[in-house]
């Protein structure tokens, strides 16, 4: 065994202080045996996308080490990266297709399973057209999988019902980028951390979520001229502990706080008028809208002290460079897109974008969610094309050699929550779920279980494990995991990595790519000339096809190849003739993708989500200027009252990814955070007579869970439950946070609201549950007050 540190105890490792160029390399490694060879890949356990090599011995994965040449991590890895691969070797992998017979899932051949799927598909299409079929995919697959799936859905079946778990984690990032800059695509790069004078983390517990990015920030904080750090989060997280200013708003009040900051900055005259005039439209509206948000009013609504707000505004207004990030605290909260856009506005009015040290990370939750957006597996059209733009549709039709009318573009694509609603109502009859676990991750789980159980819904689950969702399937397809297939994916700063196949998948498990290809063949999808619609057979051929689709679009991959991606670092798109080695920043000249031919959307009403039309857009076409769009404040729809008197917010832990399907199968990660809990403030705990470790029943209008209590580190009136925990390893106790959450979503991005719900707490009855709490307390030696 070789391990460079115990990353369970020492999450971020040793500091390598620095500033500016040449971020020092630090190779993190953990192998349980000496590998006989190493295979290039990147980590798929968060959106950082760290380059790593997979160590292989005798055809088995035995460990990983960071890639020192990679611009994403310079060799570093966090606990999930260092341990997550263990899941690949888990004995409970799915190795054979399963088909439901007489109510039970029984083993079947691939032939039998696929024929059944094809038979069902054809029957449904016959009766209802493609509108009877929905796809619900993941933020875990590769470009090659997503692009193939997108073409099958859009040009084969012709269904607008294709979305996925990325709707829960990343939809607002995409929406906010489109609103401000015309298309998706992150303006900044991790490199901005190296030079920046100020980092503003909004609703983003980066210390826990993107441990390797946090290492880079810690290294800057330990080096010369450290950046100022401003953190906005209702919890006193490990990230917030390091902040110069910690703004702690109540759930649902991001817009008042951001508007308050913008107002102070404008009042102080800290805006870059030259930049505003040359490169933006809409500033006057913003000025008018934020004017009412005095620090006192912000304090009244959000609970953030006016003094702290002033301190933060002073720093943000004066800093010569600024790096801002946003994640679920913004994206899964009230008026998510409108709030995320205010962060873009901050950069636009200060002219801090597209240059070293000044970037915006509208973060993603999942490692490959950027690719669902690029490839069109989340409902968007491939290559950031605009469903309202006929020319864009024609480009795709030409590329795929199909009639433009088969490509669904009559209305915005169906978002995830609506797909589930159609299934609930019975107009979607087949739901194909790949690589994700909605029975734990979606809001209001009792409702989701009811839908999955419906007699008239044919459910396909394609996964590596028997998840909480797979148990409801009619057909289960065993999928290969990362490391068992080749493909590419892109992190939040447009950096594309290749992940080579290191080992064979277990049993009969197959790569998602092969499964989709097989389906397309069996369905006989054809182009206009009767040739097969899907013209590729290998991942590399699929990548080449995708490159063509991306040609000339902002996410231009045409300068990349499997060969170019192999051997060195990941490469940032656009990578083409103009940028043969990729581009660190985009929008360096203040020209944005807002010209009507270019833009990915004609825009929305930020409050209602109403889609603007081509005609509306033509009237304002800013031809390359960025949009500054203000946001009105709308209070959350469910607020604490006498009965349900506390706010619930949900979130993530450092040791787990998503619903623990993989991280829960790595013993060390499992043991580091074995169970869920409810975090309560000291004041609320005292008022309710709750002691550390007590088993507490937390109830909302939608369900209830029982959790051991953890006290402290959170604002009074707010409780927190991590959302990772479901039932596969503990079916005894109701504990998934999403039993409590609301079925509701942002009007623009359609991302569900996981960050607020009204709940009540009461002590659970003594007995077995109490003991679980005690046991948990003993194994869990994590610092209780500093939330990671």
């Amino acid at each position, binding site marked *: 065994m070789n391990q460079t540190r115990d990353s369970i105890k020492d999450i971020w490792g040793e500091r390598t202080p620095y500033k500016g160029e040449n971020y020092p390399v630090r190779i993190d490694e953990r192998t349980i045996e000496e590998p006989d060879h190493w295979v290039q890949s990147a980590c798929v356990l968060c959106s950082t996308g760290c380059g790593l090599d997979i160590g292989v011995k005798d055809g088995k994965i035995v460990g990983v080490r960071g890639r020192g040449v990679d611009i994403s991590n310079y060799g570093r890895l966090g606990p999930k990266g260092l341990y997550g691969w263990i899941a690949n070797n888990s004995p409970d992998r799915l190795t054979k297709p399963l088909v439901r017979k007489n109510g039970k899932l029984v083993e079947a051949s691939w032939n039998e399973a696929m024929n059944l799927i094809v038979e069902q598909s054809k029957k449904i299409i016959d009766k209802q057209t493609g509108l009877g079929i929905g796809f619900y995919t993941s933020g875990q697959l590769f470009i090659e999988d997503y692009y193939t799936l997108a073409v099958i859905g859009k040009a084969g079946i012709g269904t607008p019902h294709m979305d996925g778990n990325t709707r829960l984690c990343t939809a607002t990032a995409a929406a906010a980028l489109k609103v401000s800059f015309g298309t998706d695509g992150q303006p900044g790069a991790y490199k901005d951390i190296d030079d920046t004078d100020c980092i503003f983390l909004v609703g983003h517990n980066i210390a826990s979520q993107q441990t390797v990015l946090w290492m880079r920030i810690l290294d800057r904080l330990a080096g010369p001229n450290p950046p100022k750090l401003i953190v906005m989060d209702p919890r006193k997280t490990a990230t917030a502990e390091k902040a110069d200013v910690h703004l702690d708003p109540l759930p649902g009040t991001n817009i008042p706080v951001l508007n308050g900051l913008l107002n102070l900055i404008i009042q102080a005259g800290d805006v870059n008028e030259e930049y505003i005039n040359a490169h933006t439209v809409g500033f006057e509206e913003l000025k008018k809208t934020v004017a009412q948000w005095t620090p006192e009013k912000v304090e009244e609504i959000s609970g953030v002290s006016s003094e702290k707000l002033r301190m933060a505004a002073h720093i943000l207004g004066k800093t010569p460079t600024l790096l801002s990030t946003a994640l679920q605290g913004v994206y899964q909260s009230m008026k998510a897109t409108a709030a995320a856009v205010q962060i873009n506005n901050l950069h636009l009015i200060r002219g801090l974008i597209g240059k070293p040290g000044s970037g915006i990370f509208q973060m993603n939750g999942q490692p490959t969610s950027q690719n669902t957006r690029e490839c069109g597996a989340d409902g968007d059209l491939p290559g950031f094309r605009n469903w309202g733009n006929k020319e864009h549709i024609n480009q795709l039709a030409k590329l795929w050699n199909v009639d433009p009318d088969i490509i669904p573009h009559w209305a915005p694509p169906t978002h995830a929550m609506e797909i589930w609603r159609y299934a609930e109502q019975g107009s979607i009859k087949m739901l194909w779920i790949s690589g994700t676990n909605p029975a734990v991750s979606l809001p209001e789980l009792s409702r989701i279980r009811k839908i999955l159980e419906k007699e008239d819904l044919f459910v396909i689950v394609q996964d590596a494990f028997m998840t909480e969702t797979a148990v409801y399937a009619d057909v289960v397809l065993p999928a290969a995991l990362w490391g068992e297939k080749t493909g590419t994916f892109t992190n939040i700063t447009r950096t594309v990595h290749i992940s080579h196949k290191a080992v064979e998948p277990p049993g009969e498990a197959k790569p998602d790519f092969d499964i989709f290809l097989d389906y397309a063949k069996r369905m006989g999808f054809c182009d206009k000339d009767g040739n097969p619609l899907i013209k590729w057979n290998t991942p590399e051929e699929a990548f080449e096809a995708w490159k063509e689709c991306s040609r000339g679009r902002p996410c231009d991959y045409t300068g990349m190849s499997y060969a170019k991606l192999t051997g060195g670092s990941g490469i940032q798109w656009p990578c083409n003739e103009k940028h043969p080695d990729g581009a660190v920043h985009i929008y360096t000249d203040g020209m944005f993708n807002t010209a009507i031919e270019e833009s990915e959307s004609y825009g929305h009403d930020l409050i209602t989500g109403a889609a603007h039309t081509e005609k509306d857009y033509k009237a304002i076409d800013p031809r390359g200027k960025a949009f500054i769009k203000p946001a009105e404040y709308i209070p959350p729809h469910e607020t604490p009252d006498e009965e349900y008197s506390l706010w619930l917010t949900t979130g993530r832990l450092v040791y787990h990814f998503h619903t623990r399907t993989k991280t829960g199968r790595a013993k060390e990660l499992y043991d580091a955070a074995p169970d869920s809990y409810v975090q309560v403030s000291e004041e609320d705990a005292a008022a309710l007579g709750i002691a550390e470790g007590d088993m507490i029943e937390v109830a909302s209008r939608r369900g209830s869970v029982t959790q051991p209590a953890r006290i402290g580190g959170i604002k009074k009136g707010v409780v927190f439950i991590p959302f990772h925990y479901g039932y596969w390893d503990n079916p005894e106790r109701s504990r998934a946070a999403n039993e409590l959450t609301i079925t509701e*979503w942002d009007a623009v991005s359609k991302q569900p609201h996981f960050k607020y719900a009204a709940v009540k707490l009461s002590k659970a009855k003594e007995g077995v549950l109490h003991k679980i709490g005690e046991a948990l307390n003993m194994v869990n030696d994590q610092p209780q007050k500093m939330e990671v």
Partner: protein
Amino acid sequence: MHIGTYIELVQKGQQDSAEAFLLVSAKHAAEPDIKEMCKLLASWSQLLVEKIKPFAEKYSEEKDNEPDRLLKDFFEQNRKGALALLRDLHDLWLMANEANVSAIILRQAAQGLRDKELMQLCDELEKKSERQISWLLTRMKSAAPQVLIAAA
């Protein structure tokens, strides 16, 4: 002058819109976005009713008794089934358009009278109804194929 009558018509139109949005919100509460958005859009109309009040008083002499013809024409049957949502949104859309065009007409008169405050109010009326219309249209467009083709 008939302007008083027209102001009352506009006011009644907003009052009816507010009620109709609330009706649809309650009736289709199983659609979370409809439930909350219709409540919000109802609150816009309700607020406008209040804002029109001073003008209704100001021009109260200038009116006759032309009967209104808005809400009663809509939502008469209690529709059920998959089509109901689409039909109800369609009715809301018609009402919002009615409100929109009356605001445009009223603004002409406000301009003739050089009543700057009334002009401003008309602008707000027009803008708000445009936003209502635009949301309704978006929602109907996305619901239509599923309701008309795939639903039982």
